[in-house]
């Protein structure tokens, strides 16, 4: 055990057992998997992506690139690529390492490491170019097997996810000293303070030595947090600000259960918050930069600040005899803390020639050997560092090495402000040459960035900046630790740099050598270097590697860093589960499923459903053991021979009311409306301004100034939108208003020779005869005691009625009609039969027989054009040169010679013997078995089809070519004799 008594915030009196690769380990409440494993002396936690090199944690927070593990909580609950440095332990947690076979300690994939020369930058582009057919058969399967991080779960996720919208005055991201000070100063407003860690405090958790306003840091922290909560500040931990969108919308992912031993009821695993803040304070701190040297990835090599965190926050000594290598003052404090906690620091190796006197004095006092102007050139040790190779440097020269034995190597290359979210705002960065880092400049958002993320080092500076954001004053800090450093590229070495394994991006195994190679091969922009080498493209998004990558690329290009550019930071800040993004929208709640009032009857009576837009509609009603084809043929036969009942409630309905209603209808639809008398209805065709068919439906004139317009099911919202657009913006002078009544009415269609007989006894006040209520009539009346709008219309070619009653009465009316229809053998039919019956009559379905490029003439519906009208939407469009040209695709019927059913969407050719690629002259739009015709029928769009009646076309299919004869589009009762009683 390397736990230091009296250190850290982990509660060892509450022991927690978990497993890693099957072995049980013990930690305490407050441990992460990484801190608990380190406390047990385990540094080796994973294998790298490409070379399968042994790796341990290099960091202590969400920036960790190496220590990725799988976590499991029973069946279905497995998640790969979890950062061991973030995952809290709980009793019973199972974890495993990744990217290894057969075991973490002996991994066959590590041969890649020996063959590393082959996997240099751009190796995909170079290696797998030939022979061409090797890609599919050899290279891709090999790469897919060898690469990748973790294994995707295969079971359905049993957890639930949630989302919420939150509006506040101030959102503060990061509950370190800067964020807490800002929250305190802003209190009184609606303030939200979030932190990705399990507890708030940030740096304060790792620096207990600080004394704030005379109070030890941790005591100060506890009382401040209590005060903030009392003041109404919403403090959210385990909550990551993943993205910053326009106008201060910030996405937060709150993790609610991943740290709990038992899952509470009704609690989602994660919740996505969509926060809209009047002001955002970014106080995300800074990330420590690794140093780039040969062997800097060996387990035991770690960021100095992280080692300090493991010690001070978790009470874990990451090494008993560590060496520190640094070019920044901050690592000296890590060395001091470890030494005081009982470690024997073997040396502080500093790249710099001069270091602050107080640091040297403290090192001397503590008995730590110091090597200024020294470099690290290699490390040794297979699964854990054993020694480090240290050499003196002088300008342009590297002297003779010494080997220093160690069990940990703590490094610091300085600090990089965390600018990810700031960059999401399109915030501009400025290059600070002195500190070799980017700093935040202007942002278009109402956003202030404070503390270390704005380049202010130290607790007092952070407190001051946070408080200043709201005009507050900051407390004084004793024992604050500030410092400076000198940025490095690869550390100087006496070894062959071409053979160095000096890693820049740990997770994607990108070395300094790869970056320089990319530059040599012509990549001159950081964006190109990034893509060629994959530097910064792993799940950590280059949190540790981007700035080192840029410095090295700039050095190789001999240009200043801002000229080489910084890669774009993209959301999310840390990997985020798909579940969090989906929220409630999964399973039956995936999207709105709209159902009619009659849907429940259909479900009870065995309907098979199909989705139509947002609606689910009864597709067909199979009897026991009946196939779909058999059911549909039966339903069709029953309608043509008896009577069928159909739920047409989903049809869009728009009430058009006002003195200018007729004028409006005249302008919108192709048909003339002035002559339509109240009580009559007419088929209406709606075009776009381009002259193509957009929608259609039967429109009834209920009274002089009131039209009942119907639209297609899928077109309801679109048509209303289009009408409102014209009315509001082109013709605001028209006195007419539109109201959606789609859901005001349940609509039941009765079709068949017995329809009138069935309905007549139930209708009050209307004589259902050809004379009193002929085809295309409409009336307000009472049906079965319910107020109704009754239409005599037909979409089947049979005598037909559509009864509209107030929606909630729909099912009751249906049941009355169903009962009354028993004596006529009434049959419920679904959308498929409706489609067949209308196709037999050549009635189009907009969106099936038309595709947005079909004119009324193409569809054979010139009769629907009010040619005398001076204008209507689409009239001018129809006269465009291409729309009146010869050879347009026109709607025709097709009958196959072999009486087989064509496939909808199948392409049509004139000459089946022409060479491939054949000239395609159209396609099949609708195709059905037809009981009435006695053979399958089809509708098709065919080039010049109207002039090709009787000609044969060919439909090439994978196994054969089918010949079909072009016919008119009306297969049944072209004289419409069946519409008469």
């Amino acid at each position: 055990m390397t736990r230091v008594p009296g250190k850290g915030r982990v509660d060892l009196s509450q022991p927690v057992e978990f497993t890693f690769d099957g072995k049980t380990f013990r930690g305490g409440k407050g441990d992460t998997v990484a801190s608990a494993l380190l406390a047990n002396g385990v540094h080796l936690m994973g294998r790298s992506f490409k070379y399968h090199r042994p790796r341990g944690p290099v960091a202590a927070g969400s920036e960790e690139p190496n220590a990725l593990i799988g976590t499991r909580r029973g069946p279905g609950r497995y998640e790969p690529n979890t950062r061991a440095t973030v995952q809290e332990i709980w009793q019973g947690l199972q974890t495993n390492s990744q990217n290894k076979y057969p075991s973490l300690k002996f991994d066959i994939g590590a041969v890649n490491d020996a063959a590393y020369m082959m996997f240099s930058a751009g190796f995909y582009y170079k290696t797998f170019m030939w022979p061409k057919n090797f890609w599919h058969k050899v290279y891709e399967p090999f790469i897919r097997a060898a690469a990748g991080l973790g294994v995707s779960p295969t079971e359905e996720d049993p957890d639930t996810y949630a989302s919420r919208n939150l509006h506040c005055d101030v959102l503060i991201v990061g509950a370190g000293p800067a964020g807490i000070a800002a929250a305190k100063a802003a209190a009184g407003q609606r303030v939200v303070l979030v932190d990705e860690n399990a507890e708030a405090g940030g740096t304060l958790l790792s620096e207990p030595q600080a004394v704030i306003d005379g109070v030890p840091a941790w005591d100060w922290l506890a009382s401040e947090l209590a005060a903030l909560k009392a003041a109404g500040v919403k403090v959210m931990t385990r909550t990551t600000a993943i993205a910053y969108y326009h106008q201060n919308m910030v996405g937060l992912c709150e993790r609610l259960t991943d740290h709990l031993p038992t899952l509470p009821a009704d609690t989602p695993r994660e919740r996505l918050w969509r926060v809209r803040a009047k002001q955002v304070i970014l106080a995300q701190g800074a990330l420590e930069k690794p140093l780039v040297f040969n062997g800097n990835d060996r387990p035991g090599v770690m960021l100095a600040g992280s080692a300090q965190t493991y010690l001070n926050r978790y009470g874990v000594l990451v090494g008993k005899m560590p060496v520190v290598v640094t070019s920044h003052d901050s690592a000296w404090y890590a060395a001091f803390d470890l030494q005081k906690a009982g470690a024997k620091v073997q040396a502080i190796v500093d790249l710099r020639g001069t270091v602050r006197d107080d640091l040297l004095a403290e090192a001397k006092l503590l008995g730590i050997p110091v090597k200024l102007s020294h470099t690290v050139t290699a490390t040794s040790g297979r699964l854990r560092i054993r020694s480090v190779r240290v050499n003196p440097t002088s300008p342009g020269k590297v002297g003779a090495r010494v080997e220093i034995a160690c069990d940990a190597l703590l490094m610091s290359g300085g600090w990089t402000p965390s600018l990810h979210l700031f960059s999401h705002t399109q915030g501009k960065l400025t290059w600070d040459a002195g500190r070799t880092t980017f700093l935040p400049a202007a942002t278009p958002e109402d956003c202030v960035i404070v503390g270390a993320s704005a380049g202010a080092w130290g607790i007092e500076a952070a407190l001051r900046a946070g408080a200043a954001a709201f005009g507050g004053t900051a407390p004084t800090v004793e024992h604050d630790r500030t410092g400076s450093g000198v940025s490095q590229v690869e550390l100087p070495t006496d070894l062959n740099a071409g053979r160095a394994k000096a890693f820049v991006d740990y997770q994607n195994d990108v070395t300094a050598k790869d970056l320089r190679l990319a530059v040599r091969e012509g990549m001159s922009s950081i964006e190109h270097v990034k893509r060629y080498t994959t530097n910064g493209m792993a799940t950590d998004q280059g949190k540790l590697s981007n700035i080192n990558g840029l410095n090295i690329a700039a050095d190789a290009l001999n240009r200043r860093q801002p000229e080489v550019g910084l890669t774009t930071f993209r959301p999310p800040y840390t990997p985020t589960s798909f579940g969090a993004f989906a929220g409630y929208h999964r399973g039956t709640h995936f999207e709105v499923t709209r159902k009619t009032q009659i849907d429940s009857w259909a479900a009870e009576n065995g309907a098979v459903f199909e989705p139509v837009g947002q609606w689910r509609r009864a597709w067909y009603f199979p009897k026991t053991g009946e196939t779909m084809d058999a059911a549909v043929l039966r339903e069709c036969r029953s309608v043509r021979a008896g009577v069928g009942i159909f739920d047409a409630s989903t049809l869009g309905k728009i009430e058009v009311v006002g003195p200018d209603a007729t004028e409006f209808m005249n302008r919108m639809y192709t048909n003339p409306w002035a002559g339509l008398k109240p009580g009559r209805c007419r088929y209406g065709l709606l075009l776009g301004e381009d002259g193509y068919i957009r929608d259609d439906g039967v429109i009834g004139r209920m009274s002089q100034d009131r039209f009942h317009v119907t639209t297609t099911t899928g077109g309801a919202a679109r048509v209303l939108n289009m009408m409102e657009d014209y009315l509001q913006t082109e013709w605001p002078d028209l006195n007419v208003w539109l109201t959606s009544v789609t859901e005001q009415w349940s609509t039941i269609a009765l079709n068949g020779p017995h329809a009138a007989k069935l309905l007549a006894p139930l209708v009050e006040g209307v004589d259902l005869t050809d004379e009193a209520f002929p085809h295309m009539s409409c009336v307000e009346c009472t049906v079965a005691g319910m107020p109704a709008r009754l239409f005599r219309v037909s979409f089947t070619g049979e005598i037909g009625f559509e009864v509209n009653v107030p929606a909630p009465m729909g099912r009751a009316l249906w049941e009355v009609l169903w009962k009354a229809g028993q004596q006529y053998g009434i049959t419920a039919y679904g959308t498929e039969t409706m489609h067949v019956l209308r196709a037999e009559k050549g009635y189009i379905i907009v969106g099936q027989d038309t595709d947005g490029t079909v004119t009324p003439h193409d569809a054979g519906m010139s009769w629907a054009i009010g040619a005398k009208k001076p204008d209507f939407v689409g009239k001018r469009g129809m006269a465009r040169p291409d729309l009146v040209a010869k050879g347009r695709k026109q709607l025709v019927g097709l009958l196959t010679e072999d009486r087989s059913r064509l496939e909808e969407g199948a392409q049509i050719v004139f000459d089946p013997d022409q060479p491939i690629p054949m000239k395609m002259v159209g396609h099949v739009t609708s195709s059905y078995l037809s009981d009435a015709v006695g053979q399958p029928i089809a509708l098709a769009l065919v080039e010049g089809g109207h002039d090709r009646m009787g000609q044969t076309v060919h439909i090439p299919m994978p196994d054969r070519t089918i010949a079909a004869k072009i016919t008119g589009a009306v297969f049944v009762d072209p004289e419409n004799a069946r519409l008469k009683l």
Partner: protein
Amino acid sequence: MLLIHCPYCDETLPEAEFTYAGEAHIVRPLDPSAQTDEQWETFMFIRRNPKGPHYERWRHLHGCARYFNAVRDTVTDKFLTTYKAGEPRPDLESLK
């Protein structure tokens, strides 16, 4: 997710309540049949697609249901202003 000020409701509301409706100030000719093919092509298909301030239409679909006009900078996505349908096109200089 943008915030959009509806000039009818006089409230600034989430984009989720709105729908986009293309470039603004494209007026349908009073007598389309008198338009040449070229004129009609311009009306139908030719759009400015600027980099920078763009006059465009939005609809407060899930609110007051009104179409209105806006000037939005296509680079920054910032709305410079919104105004009611029928009101004159604001001068860009006045919006800076």
